[in-house]
C-alpha cells in the first residue's frame, strides 16, 4: 500500500537557548517546546499509535548547563502556513531565554552533522592554565577519561581525542580564559566539551564547574553550516 502523506509541510525550527534556559535539561526542553506549540495552536502532526504524541525531532541533545545559538527541531505541519508568522507566534508562547531564530523547509538531515563549534569560558582560571592548555592542545595526544559500558559494567576508558579537535583558539579577556574550538559532533562520534575541559584543567587549580560553555554552530563534514 503506498504511503499517503497526511501532513502539508516538513519544517525545521532553529532556536537559541541562552541565559537561565541552560539549566533546562534536554528532556524538559522537548516537553517545553511541545507545550509551547500547543499554546501557540500550531497544527503539528501527531503520531498515530495508541498514545498519540507530537512528532518532534531534535538534532542533537544539548547538555545541561550549556547555552546554544544553534538548536534545531524538525516537525510536520498539517497545513501550509506563512513560516515567518509562525515563528513569531511560537516565540510569543516560549519563555524568555528560548528564542526562535527561523522556521524553514529543510533539505539536510540531523545525521549530516559532523562538527560543532563551542565557546568555552573559564571564569576563574589558574594563572598557568593558558600555558598548560596551549601545550596540551598542541601535543599529539589528548587523553581524556570517557565513561563507557562494558557489557553491563560501567568503566572509565582512556581515549585520545586529538583527532576530534578540528581547531582551537585561546584568548584572554579580563582575567577569563576563552577557548574557541570545533569538536566532533553527531550521531556516531560526539565529544562533549566537558571531556576536553576536564583534560585541560587537570593538575591546575581551576574549578571545572566554573566554566561557561556556549554552542555556537553545527557543521557538516565539509564544514558547511548545518541548516
Amino acid at each position: 500500500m503506498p504511503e499517503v502523506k497526511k501532513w502539508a509541510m516538513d519544517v525545521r525550527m532553529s532556536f537559541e537557548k541562552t541565559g537561565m534556559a541552560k539549566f533546562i535539561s534536554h528532556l524538559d526542553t522537548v516537553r517545553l517546546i511541545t507545550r509551547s506549540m500547543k499554546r501557540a495552536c500550531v497544527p503539528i502532526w501527531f503520531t498515530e499509535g495508541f498514545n498519540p504524541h507530537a512528532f518532534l525531532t531534535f538534532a542533537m541533545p544539548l547538555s545541561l548547563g550549556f547555552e546554544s545559538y544553534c538548536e534545531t527541531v524538525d516537525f510536520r505541519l498539517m497545513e501550509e502556513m506563512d513560516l515567518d508568522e509562525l515563528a513569531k507566534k511560537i516565540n510569543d508562547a516560549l519563555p524568555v531565554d528560548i528564542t526562535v531564530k527561523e522556521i524553514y523547509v529543510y533539505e539536510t538531515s540531523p545525521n549530516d552533522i559532523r562538527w560543532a563549534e563551542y565557546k568555552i569560558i573559564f571564569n576563574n582560571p589558574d594563572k598557568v592554565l593558558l600555558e598548560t592548555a596551549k601545550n596540551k592542545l598542541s601535543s599529539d595526544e589528548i587523553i581524556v577519561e570517557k565513561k563507557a559500558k562494558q557489557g553491563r559494567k560501567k568503566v572509565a576508558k582512556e581515549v585520545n581525542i586529538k583527532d576530534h579537535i578540528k581547531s582551537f583558539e585561546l584568548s584572554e579577556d579580563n582575567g577569563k580564559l576563552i577557548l574557541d574550538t570545533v569538536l566532533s559532533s553527531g550521531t556516531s562520534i560526539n565529544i562533549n566539551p566537558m571531556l576536553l575541559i576536564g583534560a585541560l584543567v587537570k593538575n591546575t587549580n581551576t574549578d571545572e564547574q566554573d566554566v561557561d560553555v556556549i554552542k555556537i554552530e553545527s557543521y557538516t563534514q565539509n564544514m558547511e553550516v548545518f541548516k
Partner: protein
Amino acid sequence: MVKKEVEKLLKKVQKPARYTGGELNSVIKDKNSVKLRYAFCFPDNYEIGMSHLGMKILYSVVNEREDAWCERVFAPWDDMETLMRENNVKLYALESGDSLDEFDLIGFSLQYELSYTNVLNMLDLGGVPVLKKDRTSLTPIVIAGGPCVCNPEPMVDFIDIFLPGEGEEVTNDIVDLLIKHKEMGSTRLEFLREAAKIQGVYVPEFYNVDYNEDGTIKSVENFETAPEKVQKRIVSDLDNAHYPKDFIVPFIDVVQDRTVGEVFRGCTRGCRFCQACFITRPIREKSPEVINEQCRRISDATGYDEISLCSLSTSDYTKIEQLIPMLFDWALKENINVSLPSLRVDNFSDELMEELKKVRRSGLTFAPEAGTQRLRDAINKNVTEEEVLRTALKAFDGGWTSVKLYFMMGLPTETMEDIEGIADLAQKVVDTFYRNPNKEKGKGVQVNISVASFVPKPFTPFQWEPQDKGELLVEKQKHLLSSVKSRKISVSYHQSETSVLEGVFARGDRRLGEVIYKAWQKGCKFDAWDEFFDYSKWAEAFRECNLTTDFYTSRRREYTEILPWEIMDYGIRKEFLIDENKKAHESITTPQCRIKCSACGANKLNGGHCDARS
C-alpha cells in the same frame, strides 16, 4: 531573576531548574510600584510545592491586585542548601531573586505535619528569625494556612498568624490590613490587635494555655482583641470564587503537572477516620459550565495535554455525567487526556465506564480502607465486599488488569481478623479476574495493596482514640504479609516511626514548639522523606524537653478533656463527633449526607446552607 552568585551554585546541583524561576506564566512586577511583597512558601521541594492547587489559587489572588506582588519560595534540596550556607546565599523567591527577609508577608502552606521542620529551616535560610519572639518590627509577618492549621498549636512559637479554612478571601483581608499599617507606621502589636478582629484569623500570642499536672490542658484564656474561638473562613459561592486564569508551567517534571479543575469542596461521606472530609465542610459544588470553562482556559494558557478533576471523592460530584462529555467534546480533539482521580467503587455507572474507555487508562484504584465489613462499618466506609467485587468485575470487563487497593492499619477496634480480611479481599479480587469469561486472553492480573498507618486527627470522630504503637503496627504488617498467599498480590506499607511523629503533631499542644525547635537544631528537615528522616534525633529532642510521644499518641482522651485545637471552630459540633465516636464502637454506620443529614453543624458557616441538602 536569579542573582549572579546563585547562578554559580546552580552548575553544581541536581535539577538546577528548581531554582531558576522564569517559568511561563510566572508573574514579574516592579517591586517599587507595589505596596506589599508576599512570599508564598511551600515547606517541601519544588516538585511537591508546584503541584499544589491551593498555592496556584492564592498566588493568583494576590497577583491580581496591583498593589501587591506574590512570589514563590520552596525548600531547597540538601545539595543546594549546603552550597547556599557555604556561600552565604540567603533563601530567595523565584520571581525576583530577593531574599526572604526583604518581604512584608511570609506565608507558609502547612499541608502535612512532617513538613514543620522545613518551615524553621526556610525562615533561617532566608535570614528571618525563626522564633516569633525574636521578630520585633512590623514586617515581616509570618502567616500559615492549610489543613494542619486546624491544630496549629505545635507551631505557635514560629508563626504570627494562622488562617484556618479557605484562603481566597482572608488573604486579601490580611494584605489590606498590613498595607494600611505599613503606611501608618504601626507597631507589630498594633497590627496583630487589628488582625485578630478579622473572622478566621488566629493570633496565638493572644491566648494563654495552662496545663494540669498530668500534662492535659487546664484552661485556655483569650485576651487583647482575640475571640474565644476562631471560626474558619470559607468561600460561599465557588462559581464566583477566584480561580487562576493560568498555571505556572514548570520546566522540570513535577508531581502534578497538568490542568486541574476543582469540582467541589467538602465531602458527604463522613468516613470517621478522614480529617479532610470534616474540615472542608460544608459541601459546595461548582457548576459544570464553570469547571469546563476554567479547564479550557488553563489548558489554552499552559499547553498541558492532561486535565484532572480535583476534590475529595470526585465521582460524588452530582453533575459528573454532564461535565465529562463537556470536557471530552474539546479535549479529545486536541489530544488532551482527561483523568479522574479517587473514584469510589460504589458509583461507577456503565455510562461513565464507557467514557473512561475513550481515554488512556491508568491503573484502577479502590479504597476499601478496611478488610472486614465489621471494621468498614466502624469507620463508616460504606462500601461492601460485594460492591468492590462487582466494580472490579466491571473494570476487568473494561480491560483493566491492574488494581490498587488502599487500606489502613491501626484503625480503632481493629483485630488481627481484620488484617487477614485485607488479604482475603485482595485474593477475592484476583479470583474475580480469573473467573471472568470476558477477560482478555493471555493477560494476568496484578493487585497492589497499599497500607497506610492510621493516625487519629483533630475534628474527626476518632480524635479521642489512641494510636497503635509502632511495635503493634509492625506485628500487624508481618501478619498481613503472612496472610497473602498469591503472587499476584503485592503489599506496600510505610515505616511506622513517621506515623508516630505525625500523630504527635496532629494532636499536639504548644509545648511541642520546643521539641520542633530542638529537632531542627539537630538537623531534622524533610522529615516526610525516608532519606532524611532520623527518628533518633527526634527521640533526643523529646527527652531533652521532658515530653513523651506516648502522651500525645497512645492515650485515650476523655470526651471532657480540653483539646488543644478547641480554640478553633471548624463548624463541626463536638456532640456530633461524640455520637459518631460512640457509633463507631458499636459498628453502626451513618448514612452519607445526601441520604440523610446528620447535623454535623458545618452549614452554619454558610448561612445555614449545604449543597448536600439542596
